[in-house]
């Protein structure tokens, strides 16, 4: 082989190698997000528009999310001040862990309001370096109070404050948590419970017939399963024969199971009452990550009934408290074995008109969850896809106010995804073609298991830009987040910019 020939070969090889690297670098840098607005995210048409309404895309001029507020002139009925700090969390019964607190504790204080109250929460970030927000999980707040950094507000910086105002329209069990770097801050404990009591009926008697009412907030801190912040089982003192309403809040990243050897009833899912709840015997009930379940437990004639909440903790209802009992004898009896059978909420309770006509929806969307290897923001990984596309090329669900929207959520991946839509409650219509046959099943957090196909519907009655994401929060970081956008609504906020907004 001649030296000249050899040189040509080397040059050709050099060019080839340089081209491969160059193209690779170009491809890589093309995935970098930089500063962006959700307004620019539109990975193609995900749905169908029905009837006389025109095409899915809308002109983007119009009202800013910041203008979508509760009545600014109305005085607050319930006012709280919530101070977020980065600090060690004291965990009774366990070891303390570094995390985030609200007013010095985690979970933070439970906010209690009455239906119809105007709630005003003054949020102060004392020492969370990355900034923080408060999202009112499950409460259909006005968009400006939704607390999603980079979409409805800027993350509250160190020393900053932000006021959230909303009316507590729906009675039920909810929770609040940060929606800035949420996978880290929620896991770290920047959260708390919200209970909205029903308004008294016209006759003046309380609408809540349960003598006893208790919050059971589940959270894992540094590998420790806690109930209301303690590595200890709980006890609710109740008269024999009386019924307690246990409000179980799953603030963790995965599904929690609830079960009991006693007969229980599911009173509400995600803040919506079940109509005609039947007794649940020998079955467990699952709560998706972010979801809530109100369970009625009756105190037995002697001792107490044990309700298992999550795999590790339980709460006993009745009397006396375990500490006061005869040594070595637990009045709640031994732990009950977890039933293998699961209560199907699709067919639980008595049917009643749901008040949402889904016969001829205005819009139909597909939300198909998959997974593949790729790059997001220059980071390689095995990422979640929506309708086959990687973030940020995910669909934007364009709606108009008063649209009836039907969404098909299909999970083609191998893991369960608790899908959470902000600002709305969705009605489950069917699963795998089987129509819902029980009480209307309203949720804001819905577990979609591998291979399952849910048809859900909601009324677009709360204008704004709303996240629709997986509440196993690391999944949202890995691309499982899309948005519902109302016609004519815009946001001045951006993600990844100088304000450091990172909602997931």
């Amino acid at each position, binding site marked *: *082989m001649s030296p000249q020939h050899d040189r040509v070969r080397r040059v050709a090889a050099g060019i080839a190698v340089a081209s491969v690297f160059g193209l690779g670098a170009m491809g890589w840098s093309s995935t970098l997000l930089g500063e962006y607005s959700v307004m620019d995210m539109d990975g193609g048409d995900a749905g169908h528009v029905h009837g006389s309404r025109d095409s899915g895309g809308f002109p983007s001029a119009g009202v800013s999310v910041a203008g979508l507020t509760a009545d600014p002139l109305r005085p607050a009925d319930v006012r709280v001040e919530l101070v977020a700090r980065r600090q060690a969390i004291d965990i009774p019964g366990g070891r303390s862990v570094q995390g985030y607190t609200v007013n010095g504790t985690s979970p933070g204080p439970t906010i209690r309001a009455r239906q119809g109250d105007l709630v005003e929460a003054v949020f102060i970030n004392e020492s969370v370096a990355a900034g923080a927000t408060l999202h009112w999980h499950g409460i259909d707040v006005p968009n400006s109070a939704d607390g999603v950094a980079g979409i409805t507000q800027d993350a509250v910086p160190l020393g900053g404050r932000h006021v959230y105002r909303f009316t507590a329209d729906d009675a039920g069990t909810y929770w609040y948590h940060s929606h800035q770097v949420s996978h880290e801050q929620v*896991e770290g404990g920047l959260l708390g419970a919200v209970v909205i009591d029903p308004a008294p009926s016209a006759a003046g008697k309380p609408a809540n017939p349960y003598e006893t009412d208790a919050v059971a907030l*589940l959270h*894992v*801190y*540094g*590998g420790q*399963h806690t109930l209301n912040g303690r590595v200890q089982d709980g006890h609710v003192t109740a008269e024999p024969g009386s019924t307690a309403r246990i409000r179980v809040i*799953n603030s*963790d*990243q*995965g*599904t*929690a*199971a609830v079960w009991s050897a006693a007969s229980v009833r599911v009173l509400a899912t995600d803040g919506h009452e079940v109509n005609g709840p039947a007794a649940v015997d020998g079955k467990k009930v699952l709560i998706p*990550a972010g979801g809530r379940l109100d369970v009625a437990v009756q105190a037995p004639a002697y001792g107490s009934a044990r309700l298992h909440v*999550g*795999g*590790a903790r339980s709460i006993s209802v009745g009397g006396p408290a375990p500490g006061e009992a005869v040594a070595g004898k637990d009045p709640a009896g031994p732990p009950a074995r977890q039933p293998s059978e699961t209560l199907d909420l699709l067919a639980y309770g008595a049917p009643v008109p749901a008040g949402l006509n889904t016969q001829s929806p205005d819009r139909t969307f597909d939300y198909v969850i998959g997974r593949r290897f790729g790059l997001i923001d220059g980071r390689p990984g095995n990422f979640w896809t929506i309708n086959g596309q990687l973030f940020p090329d995910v669909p934007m669900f364009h709606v108009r106010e008063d649209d009836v929207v039907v969404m098909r959520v299909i999970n083609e991946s*191998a893991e*369960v995804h608790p899908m959470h839509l902000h600002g709305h409650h969705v009605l489950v219509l069917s699963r795998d073609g089987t129509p819902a046959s029980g009480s209307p099943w309203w949720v804001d957090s819905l577990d979609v298991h*591998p291979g399952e196909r849910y048809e859900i519907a909601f009324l677009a009655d709360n204008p704004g830009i709303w996240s629709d994401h997986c509440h*196993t929060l*690391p999944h949202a970081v890995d691309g499982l987040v899309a948005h519902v956008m109302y016609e004519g609504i815009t946001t001045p906020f951006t993600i990844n910019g100088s304000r450091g907004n990172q909602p997931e």
Partner: protein
Amino acid sequence: MRRTYSVIAWIIAAGVVVQAASIAFALGGIGRYVQDGGVIDKALVESRQATFTGDLGFPIHGIVGGMVIPLAAVALLIVAFFVKARGARLWAAIVLGVVALQITLGYSITDMPYLGLIHGANALAVLLTAVYAALLMRRSTRNASATEPAADVTAT
């Protein structure tokens, strides 16, 4: 290139040993954790904060099985095209095949736990084929050494 081929094949074989060791370590750790009153549920798994002895076995099993071994198996097949030895490509292809099957089985176990039975058995197939491919080089090096002293000559 023969040497590269055989080193990669040994890496795959060693990877199988690491896989068996790491999963046994992890399951042993789970047994101990549960025995001591620990609870493993979806909340703990997704929190990625499990702290029991042996929990490191799971990420090791995932990284070695999901990345190291498959990348090595692909590299083995690529290298095989530059190796002048009988059966090098065939055995590299067989190794890649059983590795692909192994990964498919591994990711499907949660859906169908019975596949775990095949996953465990197929691991031995990965080990044996990788060792065979590695030894193939030694044999062919011995045969070829008389005629072709420079082992790393590629097609020119």
